[in-house]
């Protein structure tokens, strides 16, 4: 069990829902060589999770399937970052960025995420998200960027 302190944080989602989550200040190292892969339907509901996703998130696969992908959103992530993601992929383009994710037990892990729309016979059927190991320098840049965005008062995630 982690020695780091934990705190309860109220997470407000953009659709008006909210939940209280435990947040711990210790990081789960990203495993070398692995990709975290998930797919969602067009509304962001998880339809596929690979084993690396299950292992890193701490959720069981049956807890992930059917859940909204924002189950992973860490309160340190500003809403504007995800707004940019959704605007990009809903326009049919690829989005790439650095994301701090929240594990079920309150710990966190950083990823470099790429999300693309899944088009079948001209129709959007969902999104694929693939996460890989980021460099420490990129994580530091993202931490500074997101902290600045949070100070601007965009607290809804």
């Amino acid at each position, binding site marked *: 069990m982690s020695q780091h302190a934990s705190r309860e944080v109220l997470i407000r989602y953009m659709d008006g829902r909210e939940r209280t989550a435990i947040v711990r200040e210790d990081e789960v190292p990203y495993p070398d*060589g692995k990709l975290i892969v998930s797919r969602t339907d067009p509304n962001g509901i998880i339809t596929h999770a690979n084993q690396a996703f299950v292992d890193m998130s701490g959720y069981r696969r049956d807890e992930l399937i059917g859940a909204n992908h924002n189950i992973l959103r860490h309160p340190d992530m500003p809403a504007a970052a995800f707004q940019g993601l959704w605007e990009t992929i809903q326009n049919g383009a690829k989005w790439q960025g650095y994301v701090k994710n929240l594990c079920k037990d309150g710990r966190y892990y950083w990823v470099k995420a790429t999300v*693309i729309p*899944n088009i079948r016979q001209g129709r959007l059927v969902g999104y694929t998200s*693939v996460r890989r*190991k*980021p460099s*420490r320098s990129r994580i530091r840049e993202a931490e500074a960027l997101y902290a600045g965005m949070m100070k601007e008062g965009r607290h809804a995630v």
Partner: protein
Amino acid sequence: MPFNFTVSPDFGPDHVSGWFYFNTWLQRQLGVDIHLELYDGFEQQRADIRAGKVDLIYANPYDASMLVRELGFQAVARPAARRDEAVIAVPADSAASCVEDLVPGMRLATTADPDVHTIGMIMLESADLDKTNIEQREYESYVLIAKALIRGEADAGFFLKQSYDELSELIRGRLRSLVSSQIGVVHHALLVGPRLAGRAGDLADLLMTMQDDPKGGYVLESMDIRGWERMSVEQTEFMIDLIDTLVD
């Protein structure tokens, strides 16, 4: 006019004859004339694919994207229990103990094998390394990459995991693996083009029982393939989506 069959140029040199046996087996089973054309490099093969000269191809996952999305090919089968994974290796006496120990300016030995190179470059990202701050040199084979590392001509090299594992113990003993990918869903696939699409179902059915046929079993052994697994349209699309997330 015979159909044209080709194989991704990243196949192991020990298995060339196996692909000719496979072609002979296929012709007899399907009752059609098929010409097998093997290429030394990817560029000429891609040019011929785009020129409509290919009807059947054992394609690497990177090219599968172009074949399916742009040229109307469909996946029929994939080799059983064989996934494409990459290894980053260094000389055994290298000071680097993990990828993050590799530094800008390092000399990378790689091949034209697109999926191994792509996966390898992704694994270098955690060290803030990319094509702008390393020296890359392309080699013809993984054995030549191993030799370059042993001779001190390169600091790190990309290998197809299967090829790395097949290096002789003598050579592998002078190398050290820093990281091996564990992606699990990227693999080669047998694809049919529009001219042969009408036989895709027959071909898939044949391949699923190939290992049960004595001659088929021998052919599979000579290609170093255990058997084939059927590939659905959605499985193919999923792999292509995943590859799309990995390329810039």
